[in-house]
């Protein structure tokens, strides 16, 4: 059962990751990206990390995907469907991808990671909270600064100026 | 705008981010007209009202019919206020034809006109409620309007198109015990209308929604030549019933409601206050009315007017309503021109809506006490 779920999830994740990049319409690409992110969340469930999985769903699907969709929808309709393709470049990219996958795959397969296995109990999310507050608390503060900086910066950038005379 | 092309034909350069919305004519928020709204985000940058969806042509038709048969036609533009819209025409025709009106008829006219003002204002208020998303405020006034429609039906025999006023008086006398029924229903309505305040006029959401939107200052109200509740909400003390009393309004006991704010809330509140005054007028007229007497001077068939023109004004539900009749010694008037409050207030719409939010469009638009069909005549 778990293996089947794993298989389905990997097909979903990888397939929709490819689709996100290759679909003609950007909207569909965004939806496929959502699928890919959801698939990763599914993996998290399989890995007994429901907290991360739900966080992934809430943040990625709840805000990032909305943000992407919103931006894409602001773009003119014909542009959404425009797709410039440099064929040679794409072939080279696919070649690079294959080389990369084969080499890194071989590297990983040959490494000792294959033997790693675990039957320890899953991590309780309370441990994560403890980590956050005890060990990583400066990082948490920095995280808050990142978010505030990103939000103010993005607002300033995306804000439309009041047209003054010239334009 | 370039100057080479004849006016009205320029191609406007449209910014890509400005969206043009055709609000109407078949749109829940427009009435029988079209408002071409250009929005930038949520803000209206330009608004072009386009009445003229109904095309009644009553003014033209009036040139072909005699003074009496014009009556069922001229009330068509505002069937909810049919007594009032006939009123200036009837007054003008009486002057042109040289007819005296019996005393009792004047009182009956005042009662009918005030009842009809309530009918109109309640209907207007109902639409205002539904424009603001307040469905209860749609249902209550439409229900209470039924009281007045019943009264008018007892009085005139028709529910909306009364054709009741006629040069020389009114068509028929009051039915028996009309006075009692009228007092009872008006008394009920006065209690009822106070309840509107709970859910509507004192509702903080409504106040925050309409207050300080679409502000028409006193000077602008005068400059734009607005009239009726729009004018009085901007702080101008002008009511034709007070300033130039016709029939027996000079002996009636009522106040003119004047609010200073000039925003959509004040504009929507003045008609509501006016309805209370209407109730007072009805009670007053019923008590002062001569108990008997004729209500109609008999006309000779096909009367001819003089070679002159008259301009008569009354105060209708939507403001001053003028009628300019040019007569050339014929049974038909040579030219009838209705100067209606809606058309005069229409000019304020592009003025007020510019720079407002799209969400304010229905409230500001309908607070102008505007009836699209009347503007179309």
């Amino acid at each position, binding site marked *: 059962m778990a293996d089947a779920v794993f298989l389905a999830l990997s097909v979903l994740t990888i397939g929709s990751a490819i689709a996100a990049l290759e679909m003609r319409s950007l*909207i569909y690409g965004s*939806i496929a990206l*959502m699928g890919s992110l959801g698939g990763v969340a599914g993996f998290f469930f399989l890995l007994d990390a*429901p*907290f991360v999985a*739900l*966080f992934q*769903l*809430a943040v990625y*699907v*709840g*805000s990032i*995907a*909305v943000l992407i*969709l*919103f931006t894409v*929808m602001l773009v003119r*309709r014909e542009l959404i469907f425009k797709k410039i393709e440099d064929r040679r470049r794409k072939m080279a990219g696919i070649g690079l991808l294959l080389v990369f996958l084969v080499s890194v795959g071989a590297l990983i397969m040959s490494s000792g990671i294959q033997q790693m296995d675990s039957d320890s109990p899953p991590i309780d*999310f309370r441990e994560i909270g403890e980590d956050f507050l005890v060990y990583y608390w400066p990082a948490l503060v920095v995280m808050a600064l990142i978010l505030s900086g990103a939000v103010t910066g993005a607002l300033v950038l995306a804000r439309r100026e009041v047209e003054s005379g010239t334009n | 705008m370039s100057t080479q092309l004849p006016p009205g034909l320029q191609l406007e350069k449209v910014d890509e981010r400005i*969206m043009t*919305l055709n*609000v109407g004519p078949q*749109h*829940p*928020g427009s009435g029988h007209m079209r408002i071409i709204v250009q929005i930038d985000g*949520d803000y209206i940058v330009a608004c072009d009202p386009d009445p003229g969806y109904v095309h009644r042509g009553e003014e033209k038709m009036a040139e072909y019919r005699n003074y009496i048969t014009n009556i069922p036609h001229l009330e068509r533009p505002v069937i909810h206020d049919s007594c009032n819209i006939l009123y200036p025409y009837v007054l003008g025709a009486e002057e042109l034809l040289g007819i005296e009106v019996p005393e009792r008829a004047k009182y009956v006219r005042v009662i009918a006109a005030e009842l009809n003002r309530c009918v109109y204002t309640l209907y207007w208020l109902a639409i205002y*409620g*539904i*424009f*603001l*998303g*307040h*469905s*209860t*405020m*749609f*249902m*209550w006034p439409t*229900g209470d309007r039924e009281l007045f429609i019943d009264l008018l039906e007892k009085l005139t025999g028709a529910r909306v198109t009364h054709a009741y006023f006629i040069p020389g008086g009114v068509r028929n006398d009051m039915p028996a015990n009309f006075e009692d029924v009228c007092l009872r229903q008006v008394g009920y309505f006065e209690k009822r209308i106070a309840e509107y305040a709970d*859910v*509507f006029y004192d*509702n903080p*959401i*409504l106040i*925050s*929604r309409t207050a300080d939107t679409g502000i028409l200052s006193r000077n602008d109200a005068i400059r734009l030549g607005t009239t009726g509740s729009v004018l009085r909400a901007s702080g101008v003390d002008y009511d034709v019933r007070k300033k130039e009393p016709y029939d027996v309004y000079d002996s009636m006991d009522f106040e003119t409601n004047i609010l200073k704010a000039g925003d959509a809330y004040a504009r929507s509140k003045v008609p509501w206050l006016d309805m209370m005054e209407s109730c007072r007028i009805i009670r007053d007229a019923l008590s002062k009315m001569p108990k008997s007497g004729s209500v109609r001077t008999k006309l000779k068939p096909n009367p001819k007017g003089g070679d002159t023109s008259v301009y008569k004004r009354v105060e209708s539900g939507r403001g001053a309503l003028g009628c300019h009749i040019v007569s050339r010694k014929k049974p038909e008037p040579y030219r009838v021109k209705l100067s209606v409050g809606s058309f005069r207030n229409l000019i304020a719409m592009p003025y007020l809506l510019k720079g407002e*939010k*799209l*969400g*304010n*469009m*229905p409230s500001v638009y309908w607070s102008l006490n505007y009836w699209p069909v009347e503007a179309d005549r």
Partner: protein
Amino acid sequence: MSVIAPTFRLSYFLRSILDNVFWIIVLVTLVGIPAIQIVLFYIEMPVIDGELLTPFLALTWLADPSRAVPIIKALMYTDFFRIAVFPGFGLAALLAAGTIFVERKMLAKLQLRVGPFYCGKVEGILQLMGDGLKLISKEIIIPAKADKPIFWLAPVAFVGTAAAFVSLIPVAPGWVVADVDLGVLAVFAVIGFFPIVTILSAWSANSKFPFIGGIRALHQMISFEIPLILSLLGVVMLAGTMSLTGIVESQDFFPWIVFLPVGAIVFFICILAELERIPFDLPEAESEIVAGWLTEFSGMMYGLVQLGTYLKLYAFAALFTVMFLGGWSGPMLWPPFPEEIITDGIQLGPVTATIPGLPILDQAMLNGVLWFLLKTVAVIFFILLPRGVFPRIRIDMLLSLGWYKLIGLSFINIFIALALLYAGVLGPGGMI
């Protein structure tokens, strides 16, 4: 004479009956029997009198009603039952249908009118069915330049999301479709899907009014999600758990609304906004933008969206009950089963049915469901009531309400919760 009805011919009539019979037989053999077998295969069949229950035996319940009890029990403990009938979709849909009817009648009463009246003889009780039939029979019109797959998918996805939300709600002890350990977080994750569905459907219709409505809905949902989440944090802190069941169990003695009224009010207002109900129904403000993001939907697609909306309404009301009103907890009201029915059986005319399995649904569970439903219905009433008395508000008022006032209030709520927690009054290890 009317030309609509064709002239009657006996041969056509008989032929159509034969046709129908033929197709019924074909469908039953091809679909029905395998379906029954699959169902039987999946449901673990109980053993009765030392004999495995076969379909034949199952059919003999007519003779002995007590034989039906194990089947019902077996059915009730399947996942299918949970998802489709009791704590899941069936109950929610029933409540949603009831909500629609009650809303219409109540609004009509408030507005001094009658409401649905003729359909179903008694005060229009079948009006909803009639509306459903009407919607089904209507043509589905899709705008010519719409993005068709998304346009088709959006209503379905909307209902699906709403159903997923419903599945997280615990109705009675142990009666929940998906008992997630991190229930509150799961709720947030599910709520996050609504704006996506909305904006996708709005965009796919390729029309101006839906797009404006969709963007408004997006603004509204996103900006009210934040106070919604924050207002629940107080409860989570005091309860010390994120599981919805755990939160209900923590309210055995008193509901959290006693201590966190601010949070409850904020949460309630956010519910109204998330549900796009008056006074926050500006995505559907008909006087400005026709029907908002629903403008282009027609027929059953619109019906599906309505169904999803009311499922969502039920789910939010139930969430309010769970978080603040104590869910199923309440004094025992349900009468115990009379002993003699269990011992002596029920007299059904000549047959006496002894039902050894009774009570199937124990008293505590029924009592819990009763309390839960009572509270939920009360919450639904308060969700419906503002529709009668408030006008719609404007988008800038909405945003300032969401971003300034409600977030501030929910922080106040969190501080109250923290104070209670650290004062040792409440919470895990507290005095109470």
